[in-house]
């Protein structure tokens, strides 16, 4: 008579003393017919983090944040250097600016990556929202400049053709 076979008590007793897993029908019969309510599962506990590991993780996180902030600063400097005076004022005031394409259409470019171009009616009310942006995950400020260059620089039709469009 075994003393203890872990936490499953009787089930393990039958398992270990009445045959093998492959052949002992009695073992499976017992397992299936008995309850398993006496099986306890210890919750998973991640191995404790050492001080060195925590320090390395926090340093890496701080570096990622600093890199992201530097990227935004560079992108914003490039954007501001290439906006007209009026666009720059608009951007500083409300994080958006207006551009006009060779077709005569006006667009509002907002500071975000997705669906951030609004095609405007003649009276300035929104007509459609366009979603088109660089495939590379550049900072939002670079996205805005890319869109301005495409629209003003002779690629307006290509940009509109690529965009996913929906009513604004």
């Amino acid at each position: 008579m075994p003393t203890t076979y872990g936490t499953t008590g009787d089930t393990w007793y039958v398992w270990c003393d009445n045959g093998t897993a492959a052949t002992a029908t009695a073992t499976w019969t017992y397992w299936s017919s008995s309850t398993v309510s006496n099986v306890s599962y210890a919750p998973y506990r991640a191995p404790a983090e050492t001080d060195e590991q925590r320090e390395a993780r926090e340093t890496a996180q701080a570096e990622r944040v600093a890199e992201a902030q530097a990227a935004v600063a560079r992108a914003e400097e490039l954007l501001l250097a290439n906006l007209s005076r009026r666009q720059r004022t608009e951007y500083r005031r409300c994080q958006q600016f207006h551009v006009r394409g060779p077709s005569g259409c006006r667009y509002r470019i907002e500071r975000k990556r997705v669906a951030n171009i609004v095609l405007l009616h003649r009276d300035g009310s929104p007509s459609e929202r366009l979603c088109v942006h660089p495939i590379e995950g550049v900072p939002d400020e670079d996205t805005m400049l890319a869109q301005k260059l495409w629209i003003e620089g002779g690629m307006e039709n290509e940009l509109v053709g690529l965009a996913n469009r929906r009513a604004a």
Partner: protein
Amino acid sequence: MGELRIMGRPGDTKLIWDIENEAETENAKRTFDDLVAKGFTGFEVKGRKGEKGERMAAFDADAGAIIMVPRLAGG
């Protein structure tokens, strides 16, 4: 002096060339062509007053500043 500003995930990187320097100019042209082959579009920017950029079909060493924009796609 010419300046190539290449947009990318960590913000733009800058490549400067002296038109009098053949090696630098050739390097700038090669970079421009490589980026265009990858789907980038070059825009020449005249001055620093936000004037409209113009799409560049081919590298021009006399261009003052060129911004290289990654391929755009519908989102």
